[in-house]
């Protein structure tokens, strides 16, 4: 779990070019971290690659925050 959080954070920091301390679990990608809809798609793609999982479209729509992503990924890996 802790490992997932760190890896997710690292990807978010790289992709969205935001400060690491802003990437907390409660942070939402779009409102808090300034991602646009295309960034979100890219983030999900990056998660899929990093964790070698598939994130279905229905789930993508529900991943709005860092915590959402961590939760989903933790359940899968």
């Amino acid at each position, binding site marked *: 779990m802790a490992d997932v959080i760190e890896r997710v954070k690292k990807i978010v920091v790289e992709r969205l070019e935001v400060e690491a301390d802003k990437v907390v679990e409660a942070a939402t990608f779009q409102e808090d971290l300034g991602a646009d809809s*295309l960034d979100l798609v*890219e983030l999900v*793609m990056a998660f899929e690659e990093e964790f070698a999982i598939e994130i279905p479209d229905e789930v993508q729509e529900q991943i709005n925050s860092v915590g959402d992503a961590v939760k989903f990924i933790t359940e899968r890996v």
Partner: protein
Amino acid sequence: MFDLSGKTALVTGATGGIGGEIAKTLHARGASVALSGTRKEKLDVLVEELGERAFAVPCNLSDAEETSALVGKAEEALGAGLDILVANAGITRDGLLMRMKEEDFETVLNVNLQSYFRLAKSCMRGMMKRKSGRIIGITSIVGVTGNPGQTNYAASKAGMIGFSKSLAQEVASRNITVNCVAPGFIASPMTDELNEAQKTHILSSIPAGKLGEGADIAAAVAYLASNEAGYMTGQTLHVNGGMAML
């Protein structure tokens, strides 16, 4: 200028007159090409003619699953991610609307427009990752001007333009461009079927005084596919001898 060395391209409808010229032109400019069409034998002849860097990937674009799998198949044959998609395949089922069957409308929309959606969609992931890509839809002048007897075909071609403009806006920030080329009257097996009176009538409406050639279209495609066209997106290049100036 317009060098495509090291690039990969998928051309659908490559067994047609225009598609064949597009394939040859992209290949001649250095691209590796995957060529799709329904007529396997004609594809093989074209692939053989081109020699190295050419691969046949037969596909029936009226089949949704086959179409969605085509980009993957092409990438496998090419041994690399796809840089350039040329959605060129198209069919007609002409007839006055009053006599047009629901099926004639659906089939044309499916093969011409929905396949464009499926192909473009299946390129997206790879192009987004590589932050580069060229999507080129071969539409038609009638998609903009209309043509009696072609409500279905014109709707599908106008649809391609609207689709391209929307997708262009979605992915422009990732260096993926989406453009259309709209041929006017191009000499092809399709126009060969016209009778003399029809041809004379058509020529009178073309300032250039002649039908276009597949190579005229291919040249526009080669430009849009090139690095030099990186700032061009959401556009439709009209190649029609001045028949309609838009």
